[in-house]
């Protein structure tokens, strides 16, 4: 289990991370979210041992992370960390060997992964000759080449099209199923929502939201109702507890303060004609994120 306990990091007088704590268990996918400059990369660097925390501790199975265990860790940085003059094979051999792997094992694993990501033909191409998306695939491959027990992914989906996001997502889920701990950050909340069980939302180094996604959504009392009916929007707006009403395509989206408001809305909708849809949905993580971060942004 990875334990981040009361970690604080100062750059001079600037507080980058403030008393951050979380745990990640084997097979768990953990999301570290936040706007730019929230402290995500600093946290990752502290986990990787690239930065020393000003206070607090990071442990893996109750031991400090050092160069004895880094062979079992995979790390994908937010910016490209590839040596662009090398070929894909040379790059993977380089990073793989630094992970303590043997050449033949690296080549075998590389071939499997290249095939999985449909880029086998790029094995001997120089990285600088590849497209941004393919470079990101190679970067991801270098991070997982050693089948890490702890995988840290800083914005793994950047520069990827939806098909490749799906490929990455499947690989990440497969690794988690095999018991790897995965921590990742992303600006795309739909990705976090898809496979994260737990998350921490950082704002200016401080934790503004944390816990299991299901619990977070439950705690966030606001709900959304999607309606397909012939009804005047003004009538819906007049219902006590309705926060906003808007047209989303051919549907009406009604945001309500809590679940108790839903029956009152239903009463109004029931009087309308051509009713084909009335669905109460939980708010998206994106909505919660914007609400929570916005709420704390000015503080």
């Amino acid at each position, binding site marked *: 289990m990875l334990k981040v306990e009361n970690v604080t990091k100062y750059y001079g007088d600037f507080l980058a991370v403030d008393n951050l704590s979380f745990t990640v268990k084997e097979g768990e996918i953990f999301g570290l979210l936040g706007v730019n400059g929230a402290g995500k990369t600093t946290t990752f*660097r502290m986990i*990787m041992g690239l930065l020393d925390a000003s206070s607090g501790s990071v442990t893996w199975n109750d031991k400090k992370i050092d160069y004895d265990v880094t062979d079992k860790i995979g790390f994908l940085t937010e910016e490209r960390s590839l040596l662009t003059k090398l070929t894909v094979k040379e790059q993977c051999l380089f*990073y793989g060997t630094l992970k303590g792997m043997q050449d033949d094992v690296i080549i075998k694993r590389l071939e499997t992964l290249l095939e999985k990501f449909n880029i086998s033909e790029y094995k001997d191409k120089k990285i600088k000759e590849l497209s941004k998306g393919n470079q990101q695939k190679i970067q991801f491959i270098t991070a997982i080449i050693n089948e890490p027990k702890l995988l840290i992914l800083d914005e793994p989906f950047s520069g990827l099209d939806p098909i490749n996001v799906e490929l990455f997502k499947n690989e990440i889920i497969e690794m988690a199923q095999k018991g790897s701990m995965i921590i990742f950050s992303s600006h795309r909340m739909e990705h976090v929502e898809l496979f994260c069980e737990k998350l921490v939302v950082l704002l200016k180094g401080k934790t503004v939201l944390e816990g299991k996604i299901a619990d977070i959504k439950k705690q966030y009392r606001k709900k959304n109702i999607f309606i397909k009916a012939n009804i005047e929007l003004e009538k819906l707006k007049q219902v006590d507890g309705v926060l906003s009403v808007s047209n989303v395509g051919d549907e009406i989206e009604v945001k309500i303060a809590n679940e108790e408001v839903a029956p009152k809305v239903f009463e109004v909708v029931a009087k309308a004609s051509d009713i084909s849809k009335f669905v109460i949905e939980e708010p998206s993580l994106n909505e919660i994120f914007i609400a929570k971060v916005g709420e704390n942004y000015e503080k």
Partner: protein
Amino acid sequence: MRSKLNYLISVSLKRKIKTKWFMAANIILFIVILAALNIDSIITFFGGDFNDTMKIYVVDKADSFDIFSNQMQANSFNLTNDEEFGYELINYKEDKTAEDLIKEEKKKALVIVLEKKANVLEATITSQNFIDTLDYQVISNALTNTKVSLAILDSKISMEEINKIYEPINIARVILDENEKSEDEATSMIMSTVFPVIILPFFMLTLFLVQMIGAEVNDEKTTRGMEIIISNVSPKTHFFAKVIAGNLFVLIQGMLLVCFVVVGFLVRNIIGGASITNGVIDEFGGVINTVLASGLGSKLIYVVPLTLVLMLLTFLAYSLLAGILASMTTNTEDFQQLQTPIIIISLIGYYLSIMAGVFDGALFIKFFAFVPLISAILAPSLLIIGQIGVIEVSIAIIIMIVVNTLLIKYGLKIYKVGILNYSSKGLWKKMFKALKD
């Protein structure tokens, strides 16, 4: 499992050596060295009249051909330092016939008319074109000496006496200081000129070293590959890998340069480099002979190892410095700007070693023989010309060891922070803080 340090060293070396550009650079170097060592043969191959003996038709109206011929031989040797006499002297009676011959022979022939006017020798030199300056000087000196000889003859001094007069004077050199051998005087003069030329490749290798380490560290840093590398190996391992690889590279490159020179000399021997100019080999051989004859050979037994130790320590210091500075800079352009002053430090040593022969005993120059990075060139130069002794060079070596130790101790602290620093804002503050930690 292979050691990560060894692996990083081998990767760095392969990246530098297993490239077509390394091959290309060395092919060019080989061609340049080969050409430089055989330049006379190359010039000869493309043709020209420099290899021909100059014909001199002497219209002797003053009965002085023999004396002039002797003087030409003597002056030719004195001025060209060439035992082979490059002139063919023909005693002609009719100047008109000779001038006709010149037209046929063109610029490698000339006519000298010798005649006495008022009992004093006068000469007219006729040629088709300009005469080479050296040829003119030989002829001019020979004519002047002939004129003097004739005057001496007129004063009834025997030919034997005249020859004695013209022989170079025997000088017995006495130096009162027992520590200074008289033969060192000549060799000192030679070595003060030759030594800086011999160590010229040192600059080239220093430049290669600084460029290699700087470029590699910057490349890994700017691509952010450094974060992945440092998350797998410690900054210390990474730093030493770069330094060791850089030094191994310059040793390999240095050995290649030596091989190129050896091959160049072998080629020169095979193609018969002892052509008309007899330049490099003879001069180099002359220096070696002079050095051996003077007993400097025994001096080289300790000068060479001391120089090599100082150079290796200086390479190490340069590589440490390059690594530290490269870690601090945030892009390749910044490092390239820093690279110039580092190389200039070495250049100061080079110029001071040349000037040491002129400013004999200058305290200012002696002081710099102990200054790190400069000492590698200056201290051996001063040792050879006898301005400092083995003890002083040993002190320079100890200073270099201390400097390298300090560079490793404090440089590592800066390196650890520098390689993961991507901002030039507050750079010096960060570095001083790193030193304190």
